[in-house]
């Protein structure tokens, strides 16, 4: 199974849209992805896909499962959009740290250990996720804390959207120390599957920054604010947006879709996955196969 978390220290570099579009790209190629976003704030992946309608209701949600108080089966949490299974975010995520700590205190009072950062992996493992899915994508917030640690602990690989600027480069350099900290903290080995520069305007300074990033860069996404804003407006992926909400097809946007297809393929190849129905990159009308 291909597993990764999208991580970006800075906001606004397209972390969530990258996760969403890669998930759809994997689905387009005939794989079965599960996305577990963990952002406690609005404007998250659940909103992008239009599955955030119950985030304030007292329904079963991922946090309940992580603290061992589920209100139903894990499968019943899942919503399917554009061929992608998603576990919607819920407002309880704002209090995840407190909930986990409370559960840990109780467990320790009983003489049991409780790994605060290992709960998401436990939930996914108990739900049989490796048997049911080909790809697992987590989209945690960048702040250090239980959301991020649980995501990294459950996926162990990173896809890093990065701003091609001095600030972005500094963020990538800072990432080394940060991830070494994760590895030490979580006692795991973390790998970087790809850096994904976004908002690229092909300036000399930007090109210079990219030469200094030492991770695989399968594609460089150009500045696509209009397309990404459209996705948020219509609550869909870039693929669906271009297919259904653009009055005409623009070559440069098709090319961006092709890039997501190619990045997804690069990631799949990193773990030896051969997708069953890969599209011609950027083929907007390629149908997602549903079993």
């Amino acid at each position, binding site marked *: *199974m*291909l*597993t990764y978390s999208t991580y970006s220290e800075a906001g606004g570099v397209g972390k969530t849209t990258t996760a969403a579009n890669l998930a759809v790209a994997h689905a387009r190629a005939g794989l079965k992805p599960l996305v577990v976003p963990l952002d406690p704030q609005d404007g998250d992946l659940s909103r992008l896909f239009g599955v955030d309608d119950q985030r304030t209701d007292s329904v079963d949600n991922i946090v309940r499962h992580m603290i061992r108080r589920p209100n139903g089966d894990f499968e019943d949490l899942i919503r399917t959009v554009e061929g992608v299974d998603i576990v919607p975010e819920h407002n309880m995520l704002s209090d995840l740290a407190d909930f986990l700590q409370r559960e*840990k205190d109780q467990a*320790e*009072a009983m*003489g*049991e*250990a*409780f*790994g*605060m*950062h*290992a709960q998401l*992996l*436990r939930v*996914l*493992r*108990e739900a049989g*996720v*490796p048997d049911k899915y080909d790809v697992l994508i987590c989209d945690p917030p960048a702040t250090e804390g239980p959301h991020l*640690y649980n995501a990294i*602990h*459950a*996926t*162990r*690989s*990173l896809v890093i959207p990065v701003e091609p600027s001095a600030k972005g480069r500094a963020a990538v350099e800072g*990432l*080394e120390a940060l*991830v*070494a*900290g994760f*590895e*030490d*903290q*979580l*006692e*795991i*080995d*973390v*790998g*970087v*599957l790809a850096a994904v520069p976004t908002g690229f305007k092909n300036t000399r300074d930007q090109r210079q920054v990219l030469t200094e990033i*030492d*991770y*695989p860069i399968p594609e460089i996404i150009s500045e696509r604010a209009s397309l990404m804003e459209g996705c948020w407006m219509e609550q869909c992926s870039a693929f669906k947006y271009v297919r259904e909400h653009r009055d005409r097809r623009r070559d440069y946007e098709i090319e961006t879709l092709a890039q997501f297809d190619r990045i997804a393929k690069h990631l799949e190849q*990193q*773990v030896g996955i051969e997708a069953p129905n890969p599209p011609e990159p950027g083929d907007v009308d390629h149908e997602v196969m549903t079993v």
Partner: protein
Amino acid sequence: MTGMKKGAGENPFADDSSPESKTDTAPEAEEPAPEQAEETDSNQGEGADEKQSRQQIQIPYKFRRDGVQDGRDRVPLFLQKETKVAERDALREFEDRFEENVSLTDLREALMKVGLQHLDETEECLEQWGYGMTFD
């Protein structure tokens, strides 16, 4: 610590034993984490013997915590090059002695704690760097 490798990290679902097996396996299990935290269930026997009180059972820090930063505050640590080299050598030495990975974070605090118990020798080191010098 390998730092950040290019390419996939380890497979999180690799040791896909059932959740129950965590209490059966001995603590010296070969694979790192996810089960490691849960495996201390088998340790709790010793802990319970040590402290038969209604307070928290004292599982050793290394098994009780979620990670090396648990219960610790981050401090900036500035070290000269020779010190860093000596630190790495010490880390390797302890990894040989314990025959397992030793966390650098743990080693540093252990060195500091021992140093705190030997203030006279520490004073000598500070004097070598120039503390307490008087100029006549």
